[in-house]
């Protein structure tokens, strides 16, 4: 039996969830663009259709964080762990594509127990693991996917449950949100606020068909194989000639996880900072000697495509691209990854 939440009761539900959690992160309007922020009052949350300018990835993989602090005095060095806030974070309004993106981040940062006997012991990112454990995702299905969206082309759905602990699917005609608990965290959440939910036998099939119907992008099924042989293929040159080499596509992407590590500080001490990086930058692979394995911009864009559509599926068994379309909407010169993959493998 599916559960339902009356549309008007949503804010009460969220206010209640906010009481129990350390913070509630949800999409708000700021300077004309929609971003995930920790909200003070639930009324700030915007429920409008469409997606935020970039995903809630930074709740789990912040754009910049200190790995540790070092103090220099005399000849000696003192290291100090960074302080990490304890307490539950609830992310509301995660679109199914963004939620599905967590699978990639989990695979890379917290492979937890993938048995690989002859590999050196797996190294997990403790910071990510702690944050991931203290985060609950309340997904919000899409009714009107945008022009750049192509989640269906990569095997996902605007009403998919992957990655969410609890998925709410708006059924405007019935005036309710269909609530599906996907994980025990979702179950616990429903249980904790059972009084707000009623049993219902409505389904989301009709909403799903309507939403999926709005996406006209051609499917990119099974592209991993053909891409393997197309490393040297000529189209990369033409397709990526206009790429300017910035990091916009990587930083708005829910699955991009590359980072750089740098020491910041002064003579007394400082901290070692990990922060977002992009394979689009020329210096990403440049050696100090000047040798650069990926010397041209098309080679760098090729790495972006192959990493998502071949290396991640091959090594981690996860789909590298969730089809949210943000990179297409954000790119100053409209580099369209779906178009490129379709052309290269077409």
């Amino acid at each position: 039996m599916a559960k339902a939440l009356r549309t008007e009761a949503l804010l009460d539900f969220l206010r209640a969830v906010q009481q129990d959690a350390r913070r509630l992160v949800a999409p708000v309007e700021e300077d004309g663009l929609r971003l995930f922020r920790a909200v003070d009052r639930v009324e700030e949350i915007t429920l409008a259709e469409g997606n935020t300018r970039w995903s809630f990835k930074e709740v789990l993989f912040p754009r910049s964080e200190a790995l540790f602090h070092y103090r220099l005095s005399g000849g000696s060095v003192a290291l100090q762990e960074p302080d990490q806030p304890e307490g539950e974070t609830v992310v509301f309004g995660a679109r199914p594509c963004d939620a599905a993106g967590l699978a990639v981040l989990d695979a890379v940062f917290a492979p937890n127990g993938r048995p690989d006997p002859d590999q050196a012991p797996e190294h997990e990112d403790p910071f990510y693991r702690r944050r991931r454990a203290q985060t609950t995702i309340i997904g919000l299905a899409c009714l009107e996917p945008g022009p750049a969206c192509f989640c269906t082309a990569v095997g996902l759905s605007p009403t998919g449950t992957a990655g969410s602990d609890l998925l709410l699917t708006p059924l405007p005609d019935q005036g309710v949100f269909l609530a599906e608990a996907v994980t025990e965290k979702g179950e616990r959440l429903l249980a904790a606020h059972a009084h707000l939910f009623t049993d219902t036998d409505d389904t989301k099939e009709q909403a799903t068909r309507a939403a999926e119907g709005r996406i006209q992008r051609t499917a990119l099924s099974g592209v991993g194989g053909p891409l393997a042989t197309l490393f040297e293929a000529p189209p990369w040159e033409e397709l990526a000639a206009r790429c300017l080499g910035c990091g916009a596509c990587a930083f708005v992407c829910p699955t991009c996880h590359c980072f750089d590590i740098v020491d910041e500080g002064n003579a007394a001490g400082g901290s070692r900072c990990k922060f977002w990086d992009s394979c689009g930058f020329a210096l990403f692979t440049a050696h100090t000697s000047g040798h650069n394995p990926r010397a041209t911009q098309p080679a760098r864009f090729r790495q972006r495509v192959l990493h998502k559509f071949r290396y991640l599926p091959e090594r981690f068994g996860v789909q590298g691209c969730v089809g949210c379309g943000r990179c297409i909407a954000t790119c100053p010169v409209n580099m369209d990854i779906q178009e490129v993959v379709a052309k290269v493998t077409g």
Partner: protein
Amino acid sequence: MANVYLPYLMTVAAVRDETPDVRTLRLEFQDESIREGFRFRAGQFGLYSVFGQGECVFCIASPDTRPGAIECSFSYRWGGKVTSALSRLTVGDTMGFRGPYGNWFPLDAMRGKNLVFIGGGIGMAPIRSIFETALDQRAEFGDILLLNGARSVSDLVYKAETEAWIARDDITCVKTVDPGGETPEWDGKVGLIPKVLEELAPSATNALALVCGPPIMIKFALESLAKLGFGKEQIYTTLENRMKCGSGQCGRGNIGGCYVCKDGPVFSAAELEQLPPEF
């Protein structure tokens, strides 16, 4: 859960200038318990940090049979931020090390075989690690040949050790410099490594070759080994790439689908052939 990015605090026990821009540091773990427990395998790499300047990646140059302290050799010829900072360290200073990462030379597969070690310039560092590990259990192996080459006499790394190795009678050790790099009192060979290798013509039967050095040298060395009958799986090398995290997360060290930090840095020539020309 331990903070994997937190390096061990090391003290610089010894500093030795190999060449005008290559230096070897001997590092001791400041923390007793770690010094006892630290183990690594020859061929693995680590991240060396100078606090305030950053971290950079190169192999552990000392043999894994002599734990307790590690050595590393690095070039600061290109004036990199961290390598230059490392080059300014003096005995007694504190720095950081974390690792070991990546895979290692297949010591077990090498047992009972004749071994050919080829090191070009700073590439000699990983070779020395596995070479000395082998020497520490000499009996396990057949004939051992070491070819230590460099652009010029002053660029030759581990000069002292090489003399010691030449003096040993249970191995053959040859040193060579590129034509034009020799000096009047140079007593080693003069010639590019592949040419000298072909002159030495080690037999390929029941043999393994371990090669490290600049990409140009590896390319021609592999060809020479092939001429000498060495199969692709009989040749191993390590790849040097720009890496940041060491554990396959920062997305930086991949050549095609292969993550150098997790699937390497040691590769067989066969594996190398599969990789796309992205290194």
